[in-house]
């Protein structure tokens, strides 16, 4: 079976005042129909740039897709005409952002925004589109949907706005739903509602979800497979259970062990020392070497490549050499 979405060897660069930096390097990911792929990593590791690449929304310039391909149902989106990308957005791929206000129009009633999105991609009249909008609001769990449809975004709570955005994103039954930290700004009980809703929608609509998060707990609850990113590269990838139970890369292990998990009895948390290096200071070696207890001379000199190892692919010299 060919995957629904296949990112192969993607490289994205940015022109900055420090010169050209590589924000994504040799990123390969795939997403099968109906599944959820979680992408996890610390701030700045390239999660959002990956999402924006899929949507064809990398700001160019300063950004540039410098290599690789992104295939949706076999069609390469890299180098596709802007008009083609526009028509795919909303119909085949849709995105939910962290802050709904950035993508909702503040001067348009919620129902009208959804109706507009529906009319853009489906051949329906405005009365039918408005009815569909109310149905969608109902579907995402908004009480009194016909009334709420007449509200402006600022009249809704953060959780409600995120629901409106999800309603808009799923209005055309996209095949791929990209969710970039969709609950970071929300309270935990509301986050749980949104996660449950995304799972329900996946079951109903059959959408594949690319879920971006920095929270390993969210990965555990939501993802079928997971890709761990560090400084613009995928360092470990596999079935969520495999990666969580048999993490190989020292970074992945660190991310799991540093969580102050409920019920964990350890008095001190495992730390990952130091910070993510800025992109313009990345050298020839493994980007994680400066923070890694297992780094040796080879790690400092040569970038490890993602290679299938025991359970799943890992990019680490120490794992490969059996040193950990």
């Amino acid at each position, binding site marked *: 079976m060919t995957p629904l979405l296949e990112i192969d060897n993607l490289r994205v660069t940015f022109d900055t005042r420090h010169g050209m930096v590589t924000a994504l390097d040799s990123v390969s990911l795939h997403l099968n129909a109906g599944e959820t792929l979680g992408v996890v990593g610390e701030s700045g590791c390239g999660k959002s740039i990956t999402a924006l690449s899929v949507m064809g929304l990398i700001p160019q310039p300063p950004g540039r897709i410098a290599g690789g391909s992104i295939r949706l149902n076999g069609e390469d989106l890299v180098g596709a005409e802007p008009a083609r990308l526009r028509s795919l957005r909303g119909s085949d791929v849709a995105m939910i952002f962290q802050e709904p206000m950035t993508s909702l129009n503040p001067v348009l009633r919620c129902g009208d925004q959804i109706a507009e999105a529906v009319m853009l991609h489906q051949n329906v009249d405005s009365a039918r589109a408005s009815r569909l909008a109310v149905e969608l609001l109902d579907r995402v769990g908004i009480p009194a949907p016909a009334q709420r449809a007449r509200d402006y975004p600022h009249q809704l709570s953060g959780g409600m706005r995120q629901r409106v955005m999800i309603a808009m994103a799923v209005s055309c039954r996209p095949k791929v739903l990209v969710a970039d930290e969709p609950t970071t700004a929300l309270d935990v009980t509301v986050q749980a509602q949104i996660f449950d809703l995304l799972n329900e929608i996946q079951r109903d609509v059959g959408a594949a979800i690319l879920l971006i998060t920095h929270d390993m707990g969210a990965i555990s609850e939501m993802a079928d497979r997971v890709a761990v990113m560090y400084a613009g590269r995928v360092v470990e990838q596999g079935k969520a259970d495999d990666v969580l139970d048999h993490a190989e890369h020292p970074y992945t292990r660190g991310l799991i062990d540093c969580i102050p998990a*409920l*019920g*964990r009895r350890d008095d001190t948390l495992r730390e990952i020392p130091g910070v993510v290096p800025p992109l313009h200071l990345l050298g020839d070696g493994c980007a994680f070497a400066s923070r890694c207890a297992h780094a040796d001379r080879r790690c400092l000199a040569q970038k490890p490549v993602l290679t299938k190892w025991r359970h799943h692919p890992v990019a680490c010299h120490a794992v490969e050499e059996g040193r950990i």
Partner: protein
Amino acid sequence: MTALLDVRDLSVRFAMPRPSLFAPRPHLEAVRQVSFTLERGEALGIVGESGSGKTTTAMAAIRLVNAAGGQVLFDGEDLLGLDEKAMRARRRDIQLIFQDPYSSLDPRARVADIVREPMDLMQIGTPAERRRRVGELFELVGLRPDQMNLFPHQFSGGQRQRISIARALATHPRLVVCDEPVSALDVAIQAQILNLLARLKAELGLSYLFISHDLGVVWHVCDHVAVMYLGQIVESGPRDALFETPQHPYTQALLAAAPSLARRKSRGYVRPVKVSGDPAGPIGQRTGCPFAGRCPRVRDLCRDTAPALTRQGPTDVACHFPGPPD
């Protein structure tokens, strides 16, 4: 022995704009008759969702927000009754660490001056003693002496939080109010700061009033935990009891909502306790239980009569129908 901090029936109200010229001024009841104690050398966690009144409770307890009523005993002395001068003298015992290490540090000041400033303001020690203390503090929080003359923007988020911690400790406080001290940090950096806070508590015998919406963080740092909902404490107790045998449906819902590595999609995880809706606003008078509108266990009694916080087994609970989830 008296507790370090003993808060009784603390209330805070904020005046809201009048809806019309002659209408009575409505008030927002941000904190309603909140009581708790914090023992020496312990950490009390305050958890709850946005707007539940965590920050306002802490700020009122240390007199940075005016209380509408109640009593705050710090070491047995009534803080709310102190005159300005006596309160200023008390300030050195009480310090604060905020969520945002970016906006809480003066961008134009060198970090050594930032750390020294509380001692300058309170005129603690000679200039030479203050300089020496800054050196000690840098070492204590894991910063290097050669970083003293840098500016805040030259540090990472985690390091900036270390700077705020050093500054908070400058006056040898006994109580440190930590308001979401790691919420703005990446998980890997969170662990560094949480370990530092735990070490400082043990080494210096500090007491923390520790505010967080992250239950895992509170589990890790705190000895006792109070759960707030719309300005009230709905459940409080020792950490293990509260997390292992919560009695209030809201505490149970919070625990069920917190993402956890133990729950796996592959094993068909379905959330056991669900709450619907968002919290209503805390404005105005209300009868009945604050959680009634979202509670899976709600009955008529809950809408009519507010439950009082009473001991129910190992925790104090404000619920007419406490107990394990169905």
